[in-house]
């Protein structure tokens, strides 16, 4: 299970990432509490990140902006710039890659690295961690905390439980000392344990991570199956996952886009406008990557999550495609067949079973060459002049979302 040679694995975590990036970009806000919030104009917007100063006032991530302003009326509210955060995150990836080629992003602000092979070049793990901290601070202004251990889950917990709370922002969790360190910590601080799981564990008499590690495995697997075993292994620090840059990140199984609509759509005439926009996005991404897909899936959901409505269905095409019209044709067919007419709030289209588009079977019917030429031209215009340089006329209708969507990443402003 565990490799004979001890690895040295780190997790580098950026402190209040979005807020830190904004503070560096706006030196005038130094020493003032700052939050990044979905839409500063709306008090119902949510806090995406709060700087350490704002956190001192009791502001937490994911709470409503109105609430945060009540706790701290002079709070500085900034709207998100997602594209910038992605750029900074990749800059940090690049810095980490100057220490080892084994770097794997876990989220926008957390990345694992395996420095086992770099020790001879850069010194002890602590030294490497300090150099990483220093360089990231110098080049991006972001403070990173580093958890060090010999596997990914322990490095994650070294960071979350210790490095985030100590003075240096660096902590090494040694396997030999688990009984005196990690195992004394309450179980809710463990990686992958949420509030619901904590409640279940308490009922079973499991209070600390050590209690969980000493619980016989069958007691956990008979209740939670594989997930029980996953948690048990995390508690014991059993983890052989490699740090790999060639993770599933790079292979693509499908290309999909979905969007949450600004209001409920109930009319097919409105829905088909957004459906076409989604098919256009999916088609374009596939064309850009040189891929074609065989299977079109369509899904939709109502606004009320307590009474879920909607469907998710897929169909196989007669030939693989990346032509917008053909994807749209299949999506419409699926939608008309399965939609029960109830209001729709969220809608998505995806294309899967992908293959390279360098080889195509000639079809007897339809005029694929013409469509392909047309899309090559429109894709080129969009690449050069921006997403909204050329649009379908239908997107100009009130129900169209293409223009609004082009301003956002992950639902937040670019």
């Amino acid at each position: 299970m565990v490799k004979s040679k001890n690895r040295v694995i780190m997790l580098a975590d950026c402190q209040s990432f979005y807020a830190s990036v904004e503070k560096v970009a706006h030196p005038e806000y130094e020493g003032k509490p700052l939050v990044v919030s979905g839409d500063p104009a709306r008090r119902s917007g949510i806090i995406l990140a709060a700087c350490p100063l704002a956190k001192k006032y009791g502001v937490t991530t994911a709470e409503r902006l109105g609430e945060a302003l009540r706790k701290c009326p002079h709070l500085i509210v900034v709207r998100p710039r997602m594209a910038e955060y992605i750029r900074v995150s990749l800059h940090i990836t690049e810095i980490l890659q100057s220490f080892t080629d084994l770097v794997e992003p876990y989220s926008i602000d957390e990345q694992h690295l395996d420095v086992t092979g770099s020790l001879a070049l850069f010194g002890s793990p602590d030294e490497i961690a300090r150099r990483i901290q220093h360089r990231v601070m110098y080049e991006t202004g972001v403070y990173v905390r580093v958890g060090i251990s010999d596997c990914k889950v322990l490095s994650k917990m070294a960071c979350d439980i210790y490095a985030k709370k100590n003075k240096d922002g660096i902590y090494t969790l040694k396997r030999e000392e688990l009984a005196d360190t990690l195992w004394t910590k309450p179980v809710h601080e463990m990686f992958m344990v949420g509030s619901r799981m904590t409640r279940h564990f308490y009922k079973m008499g499991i209070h600390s991570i050590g209690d969980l590690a000493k619980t016989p495995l069958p007691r956990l697997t008979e209740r939670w199956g594989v997930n029980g075993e996953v948690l048990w292994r995390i508690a014991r620090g059993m983890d052989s996952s490699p740090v790999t840059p060639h993770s599933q990140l790079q292979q693509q199984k499908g290309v999909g886009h979905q969007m949450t609509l600004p209001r409920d759509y109930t009319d097919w005439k409105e829905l088909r406008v957004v459906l076409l926009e989604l098919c256009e996005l999916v088609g374009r991404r596939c064309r850009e990557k040189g891929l074609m897909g065989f299977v079109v899936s369509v899904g939709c959901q109502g606004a009320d999550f307590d009474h879920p409505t909607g469907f998710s269905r897929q169909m196989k095409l007669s030939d693989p495609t990346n032509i917008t019209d053909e994807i749209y044709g299949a999506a419409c067919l699926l939608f008309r067949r399965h939609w029960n007419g109830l209001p729709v709030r969220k809608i998505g289209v995806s294309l899967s079973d992908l293959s390279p588009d360098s080889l195509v079977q000639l079809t007897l019917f339809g005029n694929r060459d013409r469509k392909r030429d047309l899309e090559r031209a429109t894709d080129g215009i969009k690449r050069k002049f921006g997403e909204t340089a050329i649009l379908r006329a239908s997107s100009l209708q009130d129900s169209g979302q293409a223009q609004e969507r082009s301003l956002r990443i992950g639902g937040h402003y670019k």
Partner: protein
Amino acid sequence: MSKKLQGNGLFESSRMMLPEHREAYIQHQQHLVHRTPPLIDPQAEEEMARVMAAALYTGSAVTITLFDEPEDIRLTGHVLRIDAARRQIRFDGDEGEGPEWIRLDQIIGAVAESGI
């Protein structure tokens, strides 16, 4: 055995990344790998020579593709001279940067603009 218990399964299944971040990361990784220039088939080479010669004599526009890191460069413009001895061409791009010499071995594709 479940996927979560082997390989990188635990982290693959719990990773949280925006699709845009993912795309940008993939591009970033691709730029790290050095590309090798494609081997050009003699017939393709002949065809490119023919296209460029035709462009030189008729004065029509061509689009040439140059191999470069991290990605290929595409230039549209006119061929002013072909220097067979030095294996290079004098090329005037539409971008308005003035004529320049381009080595033949850097060119991996040539298409006549009027031919499309």
